[in-house]
């Protein structure tokens, strides 16, 4: 049996519509409108953390490893290989970063983390491509193997290291951070005025220009680079064709195995990088520190419809709500109001496009959130942390689902089977 496909019931749920892709202006307009609503909520609730530079910075830090994991998933799935072993490969990356990082600096850590990720990717490639093993099984095995191996090695190498321990590496130096001089201060001044919209915009901009880790910039470059490479280059076309129609690719002389190997190895590299980024920005390797981020990354990839921009959005949304819930509960309380308003907006648009049941559903939850907001002073602290998960689910539920996974992702492929 193969569980690789794992898409039962999806194609009947909502038939994909292929509309025109929205122009950048539409997106920009949408972003401004969203910011205006957030700003309005910020003004009424006084929860400045909704759009503060600190939240944006923390969101970026949280989003980067997720985005890397999602990117790793993207590479593999675009070539037709489902990689649920992301979590394991990330763990290898964190260990690698710890091992090399404390000895030779953060960059060595990044490189070695990437390298160990590649090892994990290769293992997955051998199992899935050469041996045709079910992709899920191989991924689960890697998720079992990697944490065990990392802890095993950690005990071996870190126990005696100065400042290290059986379960953590000695400290790793941080990667350099950059700030846009002048601009950030100017934005800070505007942000502190708490003007409607302007201050919020300034807060976001300041967050994006202050103390940005070079690793974050590298991650952004990798996301953009991936988009370019996969959709604009010959290499990318060939790689994607392996996930869409490997038989066709093979019949045109594309070496499908080679591209699958490359893609899965790259996937391992990105996952390892995600782990390494995480360890370096945390200042050390600690056993178990990934805490399921590989799975969240996978979710971000699906959320993002197997596209770089989409997965960045997914990771960003998750990072934003996660940062908010970790930074304080005020903002999460304000989030209730924001969600309420957003749901009512969705209800109206859905009603106008004829989806009355969905509209009613959205309106009901929206009212519920609104009521919760007005009836309480805070979200119970035990529940605050659930915000990123609930928000992700809600967004997925209400956004129209037009998922287009690579057609043959998860299907085993054997050379010479085409025709």
């Amino acid at each position, binding site marked *: 049996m193969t569980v690789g496909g794992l898409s039962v019931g999806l194609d009947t749920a909502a038939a994909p519509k292929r509309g025109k892709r929205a122009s950048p202006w539409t997106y920009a307009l949408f972003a401004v409108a969203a910011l205006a609503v957030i700003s309005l909520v910020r003004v009424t609730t006084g929860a400045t953390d909704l759009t503060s530079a600190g939240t944006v910075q923390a969101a970026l830090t949280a989003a980067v490893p997720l985005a890397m994991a999602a990117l790793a998933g993207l590479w593999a799935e675009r070539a037709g290989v489902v990689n649920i072993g992301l979590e394991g490969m990330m763990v290898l990356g964190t260990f690698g970063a710890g091992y090399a990082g404390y000895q030779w600096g953060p960059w060595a850590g990044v490189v070695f983390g990437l390298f160990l990720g590649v090892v994990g990717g290769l293992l997955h490639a051998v199992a899935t491509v050469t041996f045709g093993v079910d992709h899920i099984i191989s991924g689960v095995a890697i998720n079992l193997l990697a944490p065990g191996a990392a802890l095993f090695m950690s005990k071996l190498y870190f126990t005696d290291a100065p400042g290290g321990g059986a*379960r953590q590496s000695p400290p790793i130096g941080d990667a350099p951070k950059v700030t846009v001089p002048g601009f950030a201060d100017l934005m800070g001044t505007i942000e502190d005025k708490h003007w409607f919209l302007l201050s919020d915009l300034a807060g976001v901009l300041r967050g994006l220009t202050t103390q940005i880790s070079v690793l974050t910039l590298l991650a952004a470059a990798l996301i953009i680079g991936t988009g370019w490479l996969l959709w604009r280059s010959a290499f990318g076309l060939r790689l994607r064709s392996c996930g869409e129609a490997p038989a066709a690719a093979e019949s045109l002389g594309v070496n499908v195995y080679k591209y699958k190997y490359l893609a899965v190895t790259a996937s391992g590299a990105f996952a390892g990088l995600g782990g390494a980024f995480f360890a370096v920005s945390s200042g050390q390797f600690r056993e178990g520190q990934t805490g399921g981020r590989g799975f969240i990354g996978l979710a971000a990839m699906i959320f993002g419809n197997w596209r770089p921009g989409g997965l960045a959005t997914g990771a960003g949304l998750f990072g934003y709500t996660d940062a908010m819930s*970790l*930074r*304080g509960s005020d903002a999460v309380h304000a989030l209730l109001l924001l969600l309420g308003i957003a749901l009512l907006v969705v209800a109206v648009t859905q009603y106008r496009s004829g989806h009355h049941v969905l509209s009613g559903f959205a309106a009901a939850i929206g009212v519920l959130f609104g009521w919760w907001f007005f009836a309480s002073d805070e979200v119970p602290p035990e529940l605050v942390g659930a915000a990123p998960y609930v928000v992700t689910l809600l967004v997925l539920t209400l956004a129209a689902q037009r998922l287009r996974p690579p057609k043959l992702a998860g299907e085993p492929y054997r050379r010479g089977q085409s025709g």
Partner: protein
Amino acid sequence: GCGAKNNDTGSGGGTPTSGAPAAGLKIGLAYDIGGRGDQSFNDSAARGLDKAKTEFGLDVKELEATAGETEAQKEDRLRQLVEGGYTTVVAVGFAYAEAIGKVAKDSPEVKFAIIDDFTDGVDTGANIANLTFAEQEGSFLVGVAAALKSKTGNVGFVGGVNTPLIQKFEVGYTAGVKAVKADATVQVKYLTQPPDFTGFNDPAKGETAAKGMFDAGADVVYAAAGGSGNGVFKTAKANSKWGIGVDSDQYNQPALAEVKDVIITSMIKEVDVAVYDFISSVKNGSFKAGQKVYDLKAGGIDYATSGGKIDDIKAKIDEYKAKIVSGEIKVADKK
């Protein structure tokens, strides 16, 4: 041999009889999740064990726990120690409460100790010593320090995982802060909820939470979050704010060397002392079953002064300390 530092987890390396000490005392120690080398709670217990070992020359066996395991596996661990002839057994952490109760009943000749738990009828018996700590008292003192050091009247508390044990730290800390400045703000954040125990292991989360507190006006944050505290100190340093350590004198922890100048004090929980005391009590025949509370008075809880950042307010803190010791101030351990 019995060197100063014992790095190997199973010190006997599979040959438990080698180097059996003349004293004949065989000590088994079962760690909580994290085990030796966690630079926190377990390590503290290990230090006590090491000290006893160098002084008394003991035969030692250390075993550790796995995340997500069941009570039966904990029980099995203790029984394996007993079966291996380890007649003195220390269980580190409240998770062993049920298990130790059962094993102790079956092995009356073995002396047991459990750290951090004293549940009536569960882990009590004629051969169990319950070594518990008044974390709230130490936390009260660092709360006092935080309030005195804070210029903004706004301080923070970062707890690793939201469990009753860590809540004790929070409650004591808040009480200490309020004792100095009744109108001070205490921001509280737990990094994860059980059974997600990664909150003790996630410096990134610690950093985000602390940064949020600093942004919201705090200038001192108490990190009762195990390894996640590293992130708290890191961001304290980056923002020129202060942090307070936990469990041991974190100022002197090698792993924190780079950020130690922001650690103004630490709440010290002398698990090592408790372990050492227990072992020596067994050795010299003065073992006593039942609860032994390590509090300020008993010297099992204290605050650290390394680095000299609180020299200016030490007198004030010691005043409170004296009041707690004398019983004039009673620090609650629950909200």
